[in-house]
């Protein structure tokens, strides 16, 4: 597991210029717009979704065949991808938090810890949910085809989800979420994140164990 994590962080190093440009761009947007949450809603996702690129890097030049001769199981590979996405996302969250705190401090806009940490925790969990949705697709279809598959699934969800929403009591859901206090909302989100990630992980393991290289 540790070796795989090192590999992916070393691969991430290749994208350091890209990440730096994104980071600077996000900070510039934050300074220009005065919208201090911008970085938090943007940068952690970029960091975390890099895990999808590592799947493409692993596939490059038939690299998977050799990779899977190294001493780890297919289950460990899948586990590592989820962990890497989580760690990269957490790192993105922490960096964004620090920058946001510094921004608020220097612009004297003031902040409370709850005000910052609740959105950060929510961002992290939403990020994990989206990642858990994307990882099995990327593992199944590969980096290149995975993008098309994802596009197809999004299209499907937008089309049929839109139709479905017409019959869904959105007001009731809105009232329910509104009635929840931050702690309640975060707890509910945490439970959903855990269940969704667990199901996603099991599907990913099944996909990976059936692959031939």
């Amino acid at each position, binding site marked *: 597991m540790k070796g795989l994590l090192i590999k992916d962080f070393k*691969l991430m190093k290749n994208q350091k210029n890209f990440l730096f440009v994104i980071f600077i761009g996000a900070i510039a947007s934050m300074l220009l717009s005065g919208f201090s949450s911008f970085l938090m809603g943007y940068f952690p996702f970029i960091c975390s979704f890099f895990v999808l690129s590592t799947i493409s890097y692993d596939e*490059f030049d038939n*690299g998977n*065949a*050799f990779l*899977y001769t190294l001493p*780890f199981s297919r289950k460990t590979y899948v586990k590592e991808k989820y962990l890497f996405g989580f760690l990269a996302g957490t790192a993105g969250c922490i960096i964004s938090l620090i920058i946001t705190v510094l921004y608020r401090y220097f612009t004297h806009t003031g902040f409370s810890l709850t005000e910052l940490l609740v959105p950060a925790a929510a961002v992290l969990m939403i990020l994990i949910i989206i990642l858990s949705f994307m990882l099995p697709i990327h593992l199944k279809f590969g980096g290149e085809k995975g993008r098309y598959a994802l596009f197809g699934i999004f299209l499907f969800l937008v089309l049929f989800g839109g139709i479905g929403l017409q019959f869904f009591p959105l007001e009731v859901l809105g009232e329910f979420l509104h009635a929840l206090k931050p702690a309640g909302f975060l707890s509910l989100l945490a439970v959903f994140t855990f269940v969704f990630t667990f199901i996603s992980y099991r599907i990913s393991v099944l996909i990976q164990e059936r692959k031939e290289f």
Partner: protein
Amino acid sequence: MLKVENLKKQYGSFTLDCSLEVMPGCITGLVGRNGAGKSTTFKAILGLISTDSGSISIFGKDIKDFTETDKQKIGVVLSNSGFSGYLTINDILPILASLYPLFDQAAFLEYCNRFQLPLDKKIQKFSTGMKAKLKLIAAITHDASLLLLDEPTAGLDVVARDELLTLLRDFMEEKEDRAVLISSHISTDLESLCDDLYLIGNGKILLHEDTDRLLSQYAILKVDNRQFQKLDPRYLLKWKQEAYGYRCLTDQKQFYLENYPDIVVEKSGIDDLILFNKEVSL
């Protein structure tokens, strides 16, 4: 050390049906033409593909029950796959150190230095020879008991091939119970290196022989039609009609040398076996 029994794998019209064994202390060669089933055999042994039937055991343990610790005792080279080209040697050092508890970093770096492999250059920018050397160095520097080497010398010039074969010989001399399964297109590499050889063709093992016996007892007999009629066929493995008469493969060179002094007897090698297999089924 490695035992493959009645391994079967169907790929469209191609069927792999093979059994082979690698004994401790031995270097065993797997030879055959392109598409004969060498790489499929390696992939099956490494668990990279599923198999239809048969069993594969390494160190007496079925590969289906293999753990990460078991895999640490194996070193692998695949001709068409290696470390990610986006990494450098400096990047893969901590990866290997984490994956293999017995990884000898000092030896690894010494080999890199000896073969002038740059530590901070992306592997995708390496030449074919440099990549091949890196793969073999990584396979032999974590105290593996078994090496599985699929075409490790493919695309290399004679000097680079000799360097790699020397590395392998040194690796075998360090510990006497180590073993190697190696495939190659270059028969001279295998003739000088292997203790025994398996010839594979159309997914089937056609021949298994000690290299010494293959080189000393196997021969090509070139005879005209009249000589062929008088030839004792008991020790002829295969024969093929040629413009001058017949070209025959035997595994009893001495018998024909002594009893038929007037016929042409030529030294045979792995290439002749492959060529005979191409022309006439062994």
